[in-house]
């Protein structure tokens, strides 16, 4: 019994749509990969890559779009990029290029939450 899930608001950029063939499978699934970051309560931010399932005719989100995302997470043992597989993504309304995009349209909650279940080994 174990899980590691993050949820909260993430800013995404550099979106790219790529096919992925799962191991042992002959089918190809398309995903959008976004560069994002996990902001910390100390003010630092950690690099992360968000993978989002991309159905047919899907469009890539604009740079600096803020999304609400629930994702499975993997934190590598060293300072590598955090991997996030989105279970749910919803882009917040508004144009990221507007000056008042963050000021008036977005909630003041830039730090995502982590919820996990795990065992204590020692």
């Amino acid at each position, binding site marked *: *019994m*174990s*899980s*590691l*899930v993050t949820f909260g608001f993430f800013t995404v950029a550099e979106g790219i749509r790529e096919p*992925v063939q*799962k*191991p042992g499978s002959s089918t190809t699934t398309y995903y959008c990969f976004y560069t994002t970051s*996990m902001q*910390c*309560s*100390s003010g*630092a931010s*950690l690099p992360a890559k968000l*993978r989002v399932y991309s159905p047919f005719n899907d469009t890539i989100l604009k740079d600096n779009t803020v999304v609400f995302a629930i994702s*499975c*997470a*993997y*934190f*590598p*043992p*060293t*300072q*590598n990029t955090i*991997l*996030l*597989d989105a279970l749910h993504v919803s882009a917040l309304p508004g144009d990221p290029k507007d000056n008042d995009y963050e000021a008036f349209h977005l909630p003041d909650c830039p*730090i*995502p*939450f*982590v*919820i*996990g*279940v*795990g*065992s*204590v*080994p*020692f």
Partner: protein
Amino acid sequence: MLSDKVSKAFNVICSEFVRDGMKTSTVQYVFYFPNVSKWLISFRCVYDGSCPRWTKTPTPNVGSTIQFFGTVKDITGTGTIRMNIENIVLNVGHQEISAPSAAGPSMPLKKRKFTAFATSPVYVILHTNYYVAHSNDS
């Protein structure tokens, strides 16, 4: 217990299906209390020392499963991720029901009697390999 005699730390191993494979993240948590300026220990969770609600929270038992909820605080130069815990659930999962000892229950055993007429009410305690009936007769 850490060297400051106040803070407590423990590891937690979390696995999740990411990028089409099971990935395991090792998380290290610290119960953090006031007047502690150092974080001694890879993936750490922190009980916020400014909040007294954590002072009586015990360290999880070895081998137990916990659920935690919080935010990432920061990362150290060695890649240790530290977290602020906002909620923790200890001993998650199936709990074994303690079986009665081989000697049987501590209460004195009474020889059961056959009876043709029901006595009521009768309550039966489940989840044991014996039953105790409480009735209004003595």
